[in-house]
C-alpha cells in the first residue's frame, strides 16, 4: 500500500461520508454543508489524478458558486429548512435499487480490462489545456457561453418577483 493509495482511501472515504451526509438527515442546511465537503473531496481526488487546474475550477465553481447558490435558495425557502420527514414513501425501494446499481457498477468497472496506458502527462498541462479549449474545443466553448447566457436570462425571468403584466 503506497502513500498515494492511503491518501486516496482517506480522501474517498471522506467524500463518500460527506455524500452520505448530503442525502440523509433532516436539516437541509447541514446537507448543504456536507455537499461542500463532498465537492472539496472530489477536488482532492482531481489533485490525486494530477488535474490541478480542474481541482481549482471545482473549488471555484462548485464550492464558490453552486454551493453558495444552493445555500441562498435554502435561506429563501427557510420554512423548509427542517422537515418532519425528509424522505418520501418510496425511499426504501430507491435505497435497494441504488445499492443494487452501485453493486452492479462496481462489479462492472472491476471486471473490465481497461486499456490503461502508463504514459505521463506531456508538456505544460494548464497551458495546453487552455490551448485545447480555444482550438479543438472552440466550438463547444462558444456554445457553452451561449448556454450560460441563456441560463442567466431564463433564471432571471423565472425567479424575478412577480410584476403586473
Amino acid at each position, binding site marked *: 500500500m503506497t502513500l498515494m493509495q492511503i491518501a486516496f482511501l482517506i480522501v474517498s472515504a471522506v467524500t463518500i461520508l460527506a455524500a452520505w451526509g448530503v442525502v440523509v438527515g433532516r436539516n437541509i442546511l447541514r446537507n448543504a454543508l456536507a455537499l461542500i465537503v463532498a465537492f472539496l473531496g472530489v477536488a482532492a481526488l482531481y489533485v490525486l489524478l494530477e488535474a490541478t487546474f480542474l481541482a481549482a475550477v471545482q473549488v471555484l465553481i462548485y464550492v464558490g458558486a453552486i454551493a453558495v447558490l444552493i445555500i441562498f435558495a435554502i435561506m429563501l425557502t427557510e420554512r423548509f429548512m427542517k422537515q418532519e420527514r425528509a424522505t418520501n414513501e418510496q425511499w426504501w425501494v430507491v435505497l435497494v435499487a441504488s445499492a*443494487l446499481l452501485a453493486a452492479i457498477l462496481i462489479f462492472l468497472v472491476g471486471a473490465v480490462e481497461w486499456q490503461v496506458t502508463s504514459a505521463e502527462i506531456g508538456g505544460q498541462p494548464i497551458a495546453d489545456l487552455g490551448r485545447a479549449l480555444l482550438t479543438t474545443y472552440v466550438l463547444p466553448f462558444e456554445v457553452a457561453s451561449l448556454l450560460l447566457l441563456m441560463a442567466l436570462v431564463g433564471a432571471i425571468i423565472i425567479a424575478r418577483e412577480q410584476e403586473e403584466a
Partner: protein
Amino acid sequence: MLQYSWLIPVFPLLSFTLIVFFTNRHKTLSARLAVGAIFLSFLLAMAVFFTALGIEGLAEEPYRSAFSWFPTGKTSLEIGFMVDPLTAAMLAMVTTVCLMIFIYSQGYMHGDRLYSRFFAYISLFTTGMLGLVLADNLMLAFISWEIMGLCSYLLIGFWFERPAAANAAKKAFITTKVGDVLLLLGMLLLYFQTGSLTFETIFEGVNHLHPNIVLAAGLLIFAGAVGKSAQFPLHVWLPDAMEGPTPVSALIHAATMVAAGVYLVARTFPIFTAVQGHPALVPVAIIGAFTAFFASTIALAQNDIKRVLAYSTISQLGYMMTALGVGGLVAGVFHLITHAFFKALLFLGSGSVIHGVGTNDMMEMGGLRKSMPLTFWTFLAGMLALSGIPPFAGFWSKDEILSHAFDHNQVIWLVGTAAAFLTAFYMARQVFLVFFGRPRNTEIHAHESPPLMTGPLVVLALGATLLGLLGVPADMPLLGPLLGNNPFHHFIGEAFEATPFNPQVMGISISVALAGLALGWLLYGRSPLVAGQTDPLERLGPLWVTLKNKYWIDEIYNATVVRGTIFLADLLFAFDAGVIDGLVNLAGKATVAFSTLNERFDTYVVDGLVNLAGKATVAFSTLNERFDTYVVDGTVNGIGKVADILGGELRLIQTGRVQNYLLLLLLSVLMLVGVFMYQ
C-alpha cells in the same frame, strides 16, 4: 375517348369543392351542382362504356395512362388510371345508380338543415368510388378507399343529433378500418416485394414470389374486402349504418362502398389465382357462402324495413364473394351490377315508404299498396329481382353463381341455395307486411312521394327488371341466342370459361325461390297481420330470439374486443400512474386491496357465476326463457364490472409525482442491464 375517363371522378370532386367553398348557403344551387356534376360523369361514363364496347381485346390490353408519383430509389411509384371492360362496366353502373340517388336525394332531403353539406359529402363519396374503379394501382385505390371510409363516417353520422347515428358512424369507421389496415399491410407486402403498386406490374411480379407471400398478400387484400363489403365477421357495422339518411344507405349499400370490396378482389384476381391450386380463393368462397346464409337468417327476424335490406345486402355480397371464391369472376361482377340496381331500388323504395309513413317499423305499416302505388310496384320489381324470380335481373346473376358453385363445390352450392330460399321468404315477408293488409298503426296517413323521388324508382325498376337479360347463358336453348349469346360475359371475361347452362340448377333455384315466396304468402300474405298480432315466426322460440339478437355478435365483440381494449387501457393507465407507488405501499395497501378485491370478486364474479349457472340451466330447460338477458348480458356486465373494479382499485394509488416516474426509469434501466448481464 378513353383518355378522358379520368374526368369522370373529377366532376363530383369539383362539385364537392364548389359546394364547400362557395355555395354552402344556397341549398338549391348546391344540389343542382351536385346533380349536374354527376350527370356529366354519367354522360362521360356512358361514352367511355360504349367506346370500350367497340374495342376488341380491351380485356387483354387495357387502356392505361400514368404519371410518376413516388420515385423511391430503385423503383418509381406510378399513379394513373386504366380502363378495361370491368372498369367500363363499373363506371356505367356506378354513375347511373348514383345519378338516380342524387336526383332522389333532392326530394328526400328536402328541408334538411344541412342540405348543402349532404350533397357535398355524397359528391366526395362518389369521387372516391369512381377513383377506385379507375385506379390502375393499389395506392390510388387505397386512397379512394379511405376517402369512401371517411365519407361514410360523415354520412352515416349525418343526423348526428341522434346518438345512435353518431355511434353507428364510429362503429362503421372503426370496423371497416380493421379491414383497411390489413389491406394496407398487404399493399406494403406487395410493394416491398414486387417494387411496384401498379396492378400490371404486381400481377407480373407475383409469379416470381414465394407462394406463401402471394398467399399472404391475397388474404390481406381479402381481409380489406371483408371489412368494406361487410362479410362475416366484420359485418356488424352495416346494419347499424342504417342510421344514416336512406339515400346514403342506397349509396353505400348498393352502388359504392360495399361493392368496393368485391370489386377490389375482382380487380386483383390474378393475385388470388397466382398460386397453384388457388389456396387464397378457399377462404373467399367459404366466408362468402357462410355470410350469404348467415345474414339471410338474421334478415328473417328484423322488423326495421331498412335492416331487413341491410342484412339482405350482406347476404348478397356473400354471394358475390362466393362467386369469386369459386373462380366465377364474371358471375360475381354480374351479380354486383344487377344487385346495385335492384338494391338501390329497394332502398330508395323503402326510403319512399319511410318518407310516407314516418317510421321504420314494419309492424306499424301495412296496406301501403293502395296509398303508395308507384312505390309498391317498383318495390315489387326489386323484390322479385332479389328473390330470384325469372326474368328479373337477380335471377340470372344469382343463377349463374349457383351453377358455377354447383360445378365447383356442391356444399357451397347447397348453402347458396338454402340462402336463396330464405331470401325469397324474408322478401315476401317484407312486402306482405308493408304493402298488404291494413295499416297496423292508425295514426299513419301515408301518401305517395313526389315525382323527384318516384322517377328514379321507375328508372331503377327498369334496370332491375331487364338488366339480367344481358347475361343469359349463351347455351340456354332459345333464349340464349335470342339475347345475343351472353353479351355480358363476352364483354367482361372472354378469358374466363362461361358457366354452362344447367337446367337442373336453374330449376332448383326457381323452385326454392317460389317456395320461399309461397311460405311468405302462407305466413303473412294469406291473412295479413293485424295490429297487436305477434309475428308468426316467434313460434320458433329460442331460435327466433337468437336471430332477433343477430346471434349476439355485437354483444360478443363488445364483451371481448371493446371491453378487452378498455380494460387493458385502464390497466396500463393505472400502471403508469401508480404502480411504483403501489410497490411502495404494497405492505399497507395490498392487504386491504386484496381483501376488498376478494370480497368484490365473491360478490360479483362468484355469485354471478353461480347465479348464471343456475339461471342458465333454467333458461335452457324451458328454452323459452330470455336466454340473452341472463347469459349474455350477465357475462358482458360481469367482465365489465371486473374491469371497473380493477381499474378503480388501482386508481386509488395514482400520483402525479415526478420521483415516482424517476423510480420507474431507474427500475427499467436496472432491469435492462440485468437482462444483459444475465446473458
